[in-house]
Each structure stands twice: as C-alpha cells, then as structure tokens.
C-alpha cells in the first residue's frame, strides 16, 4: 500500500514537472537562434530528436526487462517491458510524424528510402509486432513477446550505426553532441526538450506499470475468490 502511495506521489510530481516543462518549451524554442540554411523548419528538431532518444531508451528498457523476465521469471519485469514497448511505439510515432514534416521542406519529399529512416521504420514495426503478439498470441504470449523484445533491442545498434556506415543524406549522429560548441543558443532549448520528454516518459511509465500491477492484483483476487 505504501509502495502504491509512493508511486502515486511520484506520478503526480512527474506529471506536474512535465507539464511545466512542456509549457515552457515553446518559449525557449521560439527564442533559440534560427539555423542559417533551414530557418524555421529546423525547430522541429527540438521535438523530433528527443522523441527518437526516448523511443530508443524505451526499446532498451523493454529488451532488458524482457531478458530479466525470460531468464529469471519476474512478472514485474514483464509489466515494465510491456509499458516500455507501448511507449516506444508512441514516441516512435512522434519521430515518424515530425520527420517527414521536416523532410518535405528540407529534402522536398515526405520520405527517403535511406538506411536510417528505413531502419527506424523497421524498429517501429518490430515494436508493433511485439504488441500484436501480446494481444493475439493467447496464453503464454508474454514469454514469446519477451523473446521478440530482445531481438528488437539487438536491432537498435544496427539502426544507430547505419547512418555512420552508409553515406546518407540524414543529418549525422554527431550533430547533437557537437551542438554545445557549435550553437550554444540551440543547445539549451534542446536539452530542455530532451529532459521534458524523459520526464513525460517516466511519468507515463509509472502510470502504465501501475495499471498492469493493479490488473495482475485484481486477477489474483479473482482467482482467490473462485477457489473459495
């Protein structure tokens, strides 16, 4: 019960923090300097990149939690994996929607079949496959889905490295680490947005895992009642 109270309080605190951060984000993004060649459209990066960062984080959490569930048989880890997988799909969608919005202005097309985009789409599809398996796999699908999540996690390094291995038109992964030196005016708002996304992600994770935990609790009570 205490644990539940704590998680409720944590969720409230994180929600308030996230709300404040997202309310302030447009002001910070608006006062950040314009990028010389792309102009206004570049500002979509403040949401696009954090979206993908959180998505990748969620895929890793889902993969590691799934490995723990698969090899140690911990239902709590499975609940964490499910929550992370659902959020990976949500944040991946943010990236997949904001990306083409930028691309139509910068590249002149909505979509380019270059490796980085393709692999991101593959990752998004993999996480959707995970959710489909959980939904339609029937009893025991949690273990099977855990196997899929581990495979999805193994895919992530290939996604991240692909832009460096192949020469592509996607802005390279070195842009963000160099931002502090090359454009200090952009770095502050970018970090602010990235932290805002992380806070939002943590709040949603807390809410979603709590829902799953309570669902499992209700199921236990239901079974106990039937046995009487």
């Amino acid at each position, binding site marked *: 019960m205490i644990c539940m109270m704590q998680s409720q309080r944590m969720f409230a605190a994180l929600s308030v923090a996230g709300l404040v951060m997202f309310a302030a984000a447009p002001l910070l993004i608006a006062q950040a300097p314009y990028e010389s060649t792309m102009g206004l459209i570049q500002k979509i990066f403040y949401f696009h990149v954090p979206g993908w960062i959180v998505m990748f984080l969620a895929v890793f959490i889902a993969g590691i939690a799934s490995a723990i569930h*698969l090899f140690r048989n911990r239902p709590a880890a499975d609940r964490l994996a499910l929550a992370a997988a659902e959020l990976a799909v949500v944040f991946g969608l943010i990236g997949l929607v904001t990306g083409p919005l930028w691309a139509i202005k910068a590249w002149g097309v909505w979509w380019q079949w270059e490796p980085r985009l393709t692999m991101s789409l593959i990752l998004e599809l993999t996480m959707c496959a995970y959710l489909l398996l959980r939904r*339609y796999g*029937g009893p*025991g699908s949690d273990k099977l889905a855990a*196997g899929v999540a581990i*495979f*999805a996690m*193994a895919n992530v390094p290939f996604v991240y490295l692909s832009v460096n291995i192949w020469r592509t038109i996607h802005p390279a992964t070195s842009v963000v680490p160099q931002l502090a030196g090359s454009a200090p005016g952009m770095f502050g708002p970018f970090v602010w947005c990235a932290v805002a996304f992380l806070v939002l992600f943590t709040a949603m994770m807390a809410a979603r895992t709590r829902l799953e935990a309570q669902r499992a609790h209700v199921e236990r009570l239901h079974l106990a009642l039937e046995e009487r």
Partner: protein
Amino acid sequence: MPNFFRVAWLVMRKDLTIEARSWEMVSTTLFFAVSCVLVFSFAFVRAGQPVEGAAAGILWIAVAFSGTLALGPTFDRERHHDALRGLLLAPVERSAIFFGKFLGVVLLMTAVEVVVAVLVALLFQAPLAAHAWWVAALLMLGNVGFAAVGTLFAAMLVRTRSRSVLLPILLYPITLPALIAGVMGTSALLQAEPNLDLARLWAAMLLCFDAVFTTLALWTFEPVMTE
C-alpha cells in the same frame, strides 16, 4: 560439446528423412517460390525486357516468402501425437534441438534457392553466374540469419492459435536488415560494372547480423520453450 552436435545431427537427420519420404516441404516451397518469380515477371518486365536491377530484389523476395512457408511445418509437424513434448523432454540440450531444426531449414532453403537463382538468371537475364561464388556466399549468409530467427519464432509460436498469421508479422521486421543487406549485396554484383568491394561490405554486414541473431536464438530457445 560433441554431444551437442550429435543431437543436432540426429534432429536434422530425422527432419530430412521425413522430408525425403514425403517431399512435402520441398515441393510446396519450391512451387511457391517459382510462382513468386512468375508474379514478379509480370510486374517487372517492360516491353519484353526486365526492368534494370529488379533481379536481386526478385531473388531475395522469393527466398524470404518461400522461407516463411517452409518454417511453419518445421515445428507444426511435431504437434502430431505430442511429438514436441517428447522432443523437449529428451535429456539433451534444448539448444541442440534448435540447432538441428535450424540446420534442416537452412538445407531446405538452400535447395530451393539453387532452383530459384537459376530461374531468375534465365528469366531476367541476370548475370548471377559471373560471380557465382559471391552470390552463393550472400545467399548462404542470408539463409543463416533468416533461418535462425525464423526457426526460433516458428518454435515459439507452435502453441499459439494464430501462428500462421503471427509468424510473418514477427519475422519480417526482425529479418529485414538481413534481407536489405542481401538485396544490396546482390545488386552490387549484378550491376553493369560489378562492385566487389560493396558486395564484400554487405557480406560482412550479413555476417554480423548472423552472429548476433544466431547467438540470440540459441540463447533464448531454452526459456521460450519452457511451458
């Protein structure tokens, strides 16, 4: 370790014996692969000439589709008379059972690919024979990655209701990186001026995929198959 390979060998031999007696999977898979190539010939032939660069894609899509068809029965036939339970209860390493099944799938896919590759070379005027060893190496590397993931997923899904639908849904997103590498590597060889360096790079990429996927599949088979 010798026991591991002996068990794998026995499982593979059992599967191949069933196959040699029934020809069920080879005939159906091969027929499906040939039908695939025929369907593509309508889409990718303009004014009697095949569209440039289509051959590599056709070859690999035919391989992927027919491979999926071959994966289903691999574990499905173990459902009869509860043979799967007997197999899993055997006092041997589970990963050895997986490895035997995996080898069976690789051999089956190789047999189908020999025919499909010849067919694509003839029907689409693709110079596959010019770099036959490189094409064979790419196909084998692709086979291993595809079969490792596919055998694991087919095993996982054997007890679920909608397995025939779920197998391609799970299999394609995960194996797509390997298929991309296969298609790109093969088309590098089929260009007017073959680019061997590029083919080598994609082969190396495939090798990385294979190493990661096969290790993961061997590692996850045991806990996934625990009831």
